[in-house]
């Protein structure tokens, strides 16, 4: 395996992980905001989480499509 291929795999994996993390925190933040209004939104824009996740997902797909949706082994 070439080092270029490895680098793409690593960056793709990190971007995919960032996407999942941001989606997780976005859902959690929306839930917290419903229970405690203003907890997050008084300081941070909730949409920022979502847009960051979308951008990370797009880059992830661009660099290594298999990282975001890995093939399940039998």
């Amino acid at each position: 395996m070439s080092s270029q291929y490895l680098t793409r795999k690593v960056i793709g994996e990190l971007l995919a992980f960032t996407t999942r993390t941001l989606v997780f925190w976005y859902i959690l933040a929306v839930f917290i905001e419903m229970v405690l209004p203003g907890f997050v939104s008084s300081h941070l824009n909730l949409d920022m989480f979502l847009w960051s996740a979308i951008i990370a997902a797009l880059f992830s797909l661009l660099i290594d499509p298999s990282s975001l949706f890995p093939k399940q082994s039998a």
Partner: protein
Amino acid sequence: MRHLQPVWIVKAIIFCVPLVIVAWLTVDYLSIFGNLSITYNFSGESARVKEFTPAGRALDREQNLRTGETYQRIVGEPVYMNVTVPRSYDDVSVTLDYQNDGQPYTEFGLVTSEEPLSVRLQSLDIGIINQAINEGWSQIESDGVTLLQRQSEFESVADFVDQTPEDQGIGVYRYRLSYRYTDSSYVASPQKQVIDRVLRGGHEFWTYIDKETLHAEFDLTDINRDFNEDPISIQVYRVNTIIHEELLPDDGDALASAVATDRGTLTVDLAGLEAGLYRIVVNVDDDILISQIRTDQERFVARDKVFLVNNSEYAEAVAGLDTGPTTLYLQGTELMMQTDHTSGLQVPTIAGEPLHIDKLHVPYWWESQDEVEPLFRELITPKNDLLVRTSGLIAFSEDAFFDADYQIEQISGSTALEDLDYIIFKEYTAPVADRGGYLQTIPLSLDGVVGDRKELKFILSAPGIERNGHEIKVREVKFDFHRADLWTKLKSRFGGSS
């Protein structure tokens, strides 16, 4: 031992960054360190801060498409800003980032009670003081009191207060200087004066005595409409010093029972006082009515505020209440009136000019258009139940009026700098220039705010802004709330020691 792969370290960092942010938000939300900071820049909706209302006085949120700057313009007054906080706090510092298009007098504060309306205002932007500072007037400060002099004549604030010049223009702001008033033509009258108008809440009275006993009797009633204790204190001031105080504890009813209690009479009787002006301050909350005042003084006036009660709304609380019209004699050039009950909707007249009060809880403003100000104007309130606020003296009879401010001008939006040689003020610092606008920080205590102090209503008051076509463009408001930190709270709750 296996080495951690660098990829996993990066993943751990990526996951922990939001965790740190959530920890920071939790500390902020729970006020673990006793602080909460909220910033609102009018770029969109906020869960905690609502934009200025009502519509019409405050325009819709706007954005400068070239710079991206967002703001809200204020073109009428007063305007209100509602803020919701998760905890109750002891005080708040509000920093406003704004541009001022010529509005000479602006204050910002807090609504401490909606009914009856009670506000706590602090200075935001007092144009005439800024102008004097910018023109290089000499500035002396002592004990929070600042003296500005066009020509540097006095070396200290105390010297100025002791030898106030009588032939030069003096502007005062949030400072009492009128005690130097003397009247060589005054002769004490043997007749008693009875003020049989019922007044609600705290009031300040000014009286002038010369070779006579200072004697005033205050009949008091506790109407117990709010959940609180209602202690009564009457203080007598000479200059800025308390020379006498009368106290009465609460009647024992701290509930909102609406059962009125006659609290009897508090009497101020002081002989052998030097001639001059005295202030009698009745320190009470809005549960206390002053049912009648009897005084030996011929000259006896209220200062800045009168809350008239004589209305059927209070008929149960005060036996034999006279609900007839009231005539007041006012010195102020601006006037605010408000009622909180349907029976208080009416058309008062100020110097014959009608002012239609047809909505509840709404402050109605009147401003003099006269080029030459009369000594006083008649205000007739047909139904009473009115909170009347002005800047100046208010007499209940023509004979009782006296112009204690004859050499001194209370600074307002219409004060001209060329008429003044001195300005003495306190509780004001000129705003700091910033990005083509100004930054001003206003400290406000939340003590005494009715309710749980989680739903706060801030007020921006800019008298004359609509009539003069001025506007204030507010770009950002930052609230820094403070209270005891969580550890101190826990210690005080459970009585533990460290």
